[in-house]
């Protein structure tokens, strides 16, 4: 066994893996933001609140209809995604002709409302949710003990990220989507219902956030404020990656998870600021972000 900077390499492998798991959440969330931004040109400030809604939906499903983790993983995103569709129809659709910042302000207001209501009904301490039976326990990888649930997080997150990327970049539907962001009038001329496409895209982005929320429920505190702290870090991830590409959001998400994980070993006090520092450096060197186009 050799050592790197005083830390045994085996421990370092473990930390690397943990960073990757943490990055899964960044990737899922920044992916949702990127999808919404790409279509609607709105930065969805309520993304954190919708992530929280996903976790709460999982709890409520278990509590009131006895539906466990696996059904929740499908149903919760659908439910929360449906609320996203309503939000888009009720509020967001009136803002497309205005300055993009209005979208940010509106979704910020929505985030406050969602968080406030959740706190009124469920209190601030949080709700219990345990790891599903089928994923309890873990295996010894030699260099670390890997809980099964964490392994599942990586697999699920990678699967979702890659399929999303595939749909948007490699299929006909994705081609329409991308075309509609560039030139909605032209796409409409092909007989495609662009407003509906926009609505569904927002719903999908929100569902991604809710999916991340369900994934988080068994391992992180399920509380009304779970999203609002996280979302700011995800914003920094998004600035670093640039909104240019779906792939960019995914790669930066995982990458920054790893970097943050490493910081937790070598300089834990800075593990929450390291992403912001990287953001500052990236802005100095590549203002458009690592994968972004200037704009």
């Amino acid at each position, binding site marked *: 066994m050799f050592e790197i900077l005083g830390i045994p390499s085996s*421990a370092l492998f*473990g*930390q690397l893996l*943990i*960073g990757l*798991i*943490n990055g899964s*959440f960044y990737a899922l969330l920044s992916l949702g933001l990127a999808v919404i931004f790409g279509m609607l040109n709105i930065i969805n400030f309520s993304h954190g609140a919708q992530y929280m809604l996903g976790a709460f939906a999982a709890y409520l499903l278990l509590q009131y209809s006895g539906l466990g983790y696996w059904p929740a993983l499908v149903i919760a995103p659908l439910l929360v995604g449906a609320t996203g569709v309503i939000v888009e129809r009720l509020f967001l659709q009136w803002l497309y002709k205005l300055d993009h910042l209005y979208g940010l302000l509106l979704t910020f207001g929505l985030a406050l409302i969602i968080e*406030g209501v959740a*706190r*009124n009904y469920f*209190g*601030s*301490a*949080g*709700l*219990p*949710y*345990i*790891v599903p039976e089928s994923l309890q326990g*873990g295996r010894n990888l030699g260099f*670390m*003990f890997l*809980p099964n*649930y*964490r392994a599942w997080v990586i697999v699920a997150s990678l699967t979702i990220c890659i399929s999303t990327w595939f749909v948007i970049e490699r299929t006909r539907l994705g081609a329409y989507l991308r075309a509609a962001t560039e030139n909605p009038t032209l796409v409409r001329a092909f007989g495609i219902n662009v407003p509906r496409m926009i609505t569904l895209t927002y719903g999908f982005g929100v569902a991604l956030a809710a999916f991340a929320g369900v994934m988080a429920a*068994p*391992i*992180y*505190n*399920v*509380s009304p*404020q*779970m999203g609002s*702290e*996280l979302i700011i870090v995800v914003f920094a991830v998004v600035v670093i990656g640039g909104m240019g590409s779906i792939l960019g959001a995914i790669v930066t998400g995982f990458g920054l998870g790893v970097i943050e*994980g490493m910081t*937790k*070993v070598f300089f*834990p*006090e*800075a*593990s*929450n*600021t390291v992403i912001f520092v990287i953001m500052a450096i990236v802005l100095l060197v590549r203002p458009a972000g690592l994968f972004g186009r200037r704009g």
Partner: protein
Amino acid sequence: MRKILGLATLVVASACGGANAQQVTVKVGVLSDMSSLYSDIGGAGSVAAAKLAIADFTKANPNVKVELISGDHQNKPDIGLQLANQWYDVEKVDLIIDTPNSGVALAVSQTSNAKNKVFVVSGAAASDLTGPKCNANTVHWTYDTWMLANGTGKALVKTGGDTWFFLTSDYAFGHALERDTMAAVEKNGGKVLGKVRHPLNTNDFSSFLLQAQASKAKIIGLANAGGDTINAIKAGAEFGIVKGGQKFAGLLVFASDVNALGLQTAQGLTLTETWYWDMNDANRAWTKRWQAERGAPGKFPTMVQAGVYSGLTHYLKSVVALKSATDGKAVVAQMKKTPTDDALFGKGSIRVDGRKLHPAYLLEVKAPSESKYPGDFYKLRATIPADEAFRPLKDGNCPMATG
């Protein structure tokens, strides 16, 4: 639907008011966090506790009229301070009680001193309130950081938990908890094998837990609070920390946190509290009334809320003895002079520095199989007598204690 009284005043007037010529009128303000992080440990539950205290007291003392108002400081020291000032100056409030969040509590403590009113702290943890920042108008009731740190540290070392690793929230509060616990551990012959300082609101603790695991310490001390504590314990259950023989010691954990974790995850966690609803019949009976008043049958009162009841009761007793609530310093002096005695905290006393003294309990969270009914969270591991539970007077650096 929970109802907050707010500034609308509740007048708990005795039915036979006026029959006695010597009527005393008192106005009490519950200043708490109703909408933010600490709303579960204080908040509407504290208001309910205050109402019960007033109801009980006026029943026994019909010549006392107590008005109650409540307000939400929203965890913002400036709002808390503004409210306190306005209550004292305009609303003519005599006593402010509860007030979680040490920033708000320290600010209100000063105002109470300057305006010669009374401040009974139940919700805030800062031991500075009876330390360097003590004053003649403030009584610190339920608990403080020193007591939590010392209680948990000492009792665990004595029962075999003699090697420690700390996960410390990296700011003043966490540092204080860590420092005080370390002192208690080392003084009692334990050893601190290592520590890691994590930022506030860390989501993922697995990395820190691997470091704690590698240290082979018997006890992992959590010098943090709220969401951080919950995240750490959740990750710990997942990584098999407790199954591997290590134990978590929560240095600031409330029943609401245990509820948020669920017993499955929290089992084996050790913590210190000064009041637990299921400790005896008196507490259980009070809890029933509290649940009815609160309109929340599934919720259980925290020690902070019980402290509001107990503190308010003792305050009212002292006011009656003086027949006036106007001179805050005199009331507090009277409170310190008389021994305390109430249904929830039993017999106790208040020290010259404003510290209320009562026993503390080292509790361990039950496994799901041991828990027989909702709210059946803890088993009692040890009782720390009142004279050992709190920081010795001489160590507090309170100016009132030295001269």
